[in-house]
């Protein structure tokens, strides 16, 4: 099977800090892969490495069958962070159109579809600076989708989002995955982890364990993913000492 995302022994060191420390990742088409770990576990660094915002210290990355770094492949990937990162003086539709254009894939019909998908059609002509945090976050997601990416890298997209919108976001994610789009989503919220197809537990830059939520729970015989994560963490600490 061809993987959409493949890394081999990926490492990123900032001086003595091993932010990503030998990660092997394989994510298939249409999968929702959750990178789960506490703050500082290396989730953001890993995602920034994948999208080419950071250069790895060592190791390799392949996205959509192409070796990274590769600027052209970024036309087929979408990226979103917890900070909404939008142009305040532009409207919702102008922001969406701009990022689509940057990838050379601007299409007004698709722009409107994307805005509808995140349910912003009524605010499509509003300036970003007049929007609330939740609406901005939805615009941000629309920008990440504006160029019909085949792969979405979302770094804690639901941080600071209210529970209702978070549920809406996850239903968007599922419907995107159903159309064959691959999603890598980082989170430190365990109830979000339950909604992923497959999880990677990340701690101190290393993958502790990988598998579907059910498999990970069963491996440790726990009822929640949170407990499973803690057990894996304890095991890693003891094993290391």
């Amino acid at each position, binding site marked *: 099977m061809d993987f959409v995302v493949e890394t081999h022994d990926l490492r990123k060191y900032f001086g003595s800090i091993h932010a990503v420390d030998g990660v092997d990742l394989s994510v298939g088409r249409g999968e929702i892969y959750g990178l789960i770990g506490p703050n500082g576990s290396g989730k953001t660094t890993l995602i920034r490495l994948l*999208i*080419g*915002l*950071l*250069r790895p210290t060592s190791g390799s990355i392949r996205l959509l069958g192409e070796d990274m770094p590769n*600027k*052209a492949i*970024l*036309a087929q*990937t979408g*990226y979103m*962070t917890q*900070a*909404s*990162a*939008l*142009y*305040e003086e532009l409207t919702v539709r102008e922001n969406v159109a701009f*990022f689509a254009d*940057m*990838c*050379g894939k601007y299409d007004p019909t698709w722009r409107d579809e994307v805005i509808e998908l995140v349910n912003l059609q009524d605010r499509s002509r509003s300036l970003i600076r007049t929007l609330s945090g939740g609406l901005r976050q939805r615009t941000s997601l629309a*920008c990440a989708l504006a160029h019909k990416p085949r792969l979405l890298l979302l770094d804690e997209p639901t941080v600071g989002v209210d529970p209702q919108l978070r549920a809406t976001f996850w239903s968007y994610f599922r419907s995107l995955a159903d159309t064959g789009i691959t999603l890598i989503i980082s989170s430190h919220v365990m109830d979000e982890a339950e909604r992923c197809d497959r999880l990677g537990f990340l701690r101190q830059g290393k993958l502790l364990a990988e598998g579907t939520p059910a498999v990970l729970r069963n491996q440790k015989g726990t009822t929640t993913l949170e407990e499973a994560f803690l057990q894996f963490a304890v095991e890693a600490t003891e094993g290391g000492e």
Partner: protein
Amino acid sequence: MNLRRVLTITRRVMRQILRDRRTVALIVFAPMLMLTLGAILFRSDPAPIPLGVLNVDQGVTSPIVGTIELGQRIVDELAASDDLAVVTLSQEEVDDRLRDGTVEAALYFPEDFTTSFVANRQAVLDLLLEGSNPMRSVTITAHVTQAAMRGLAGLAGTGFGVPSVPQATEGETALPVSVQATYLYGGEEFDTMDFVAPVYIALLSMFFVFLLACVAFLRERSQGTMERLAATPATQMEIVLGYMLGLGLFALIQVAVILFFTIWVIKIHYLGSLSLLLLVIALLAIVGVNMGILASAFARNEFQVIQFVPLVIIPQVLLGGTFWAVQDMPNFLQPFAYIMPIYYANNALRDVMLKGWGLAEIWPNLAILVGITGVLIILSSMMMRREVS
């Protein structure tokens, strides 16, 4: 009013500033740098000003004191001055030497110079000035007048001497020396504003777009959209060029406003073509945009952008030939003028506005401005790449 709260705020403000090392450095070192630069510029011994002299004075022969050649006496005094470098010229050379800048003024003593002094008790100096820099003209006139006064003072006791009590006419003290100045460039109808206008226009064209570009580019990074852009196929060079064109358009609007306001409302006199003026300041404005983009890479917030004003703009003013002529600067400072973009714009604008020169004469300055733009674009792109580490 709660003093404790006031002092708590005081302490917090102090802490914040102390943690921003660059601000601390700016508070401490920027004034020292500015003062040193000022002291160097004001105290520097300017290079001697090349002064052309054409002396055909026949002198006057008196049976009592022998021959007096006043023209020669003044020339000797001029030659003795450390501030002037006297060059003897022939009639044919005067205009060419002034035009190519190898002399900055020419002093002419006619055949009857001494004779008319004896008759009128008044030495009238015929001084032809290059004229494109009024400060320079004033300095030269002053040096020439002083030398002439010394020359006359040497005549005391010869019977030709200076009247012991200057005669007052129309409420003014009549000096025995007067300068009749004519100008190769500029002239009577040109006032100080006309002479300052070229550098003033240049400074304004650069200053505002520099700040605009600096803040605009900084905001791209602080609001996170730069990171988002970096995650698209857009290259650093494309981003820099896009900014340059977008901001450049507004820079051009400003350039047009500055130029048309200066010409039609302030009503300055200028020679040369208007479209050439537009071209020069448009080029300088584009340089300003690119300097702003580059500078913003070194700033983390708007406050730090303001810090670039003393660091980037003031040296342009002090060292770029804006108000101090570069040839008056100490030798070790002069190379700095040649890395100031505004130096080339100042040259080009003075040449066009005061001398009426055309593209054929000023193109080297324009070519250098284009080159600086290219270098800045490349540097800005490299700075952005450095952020992806």
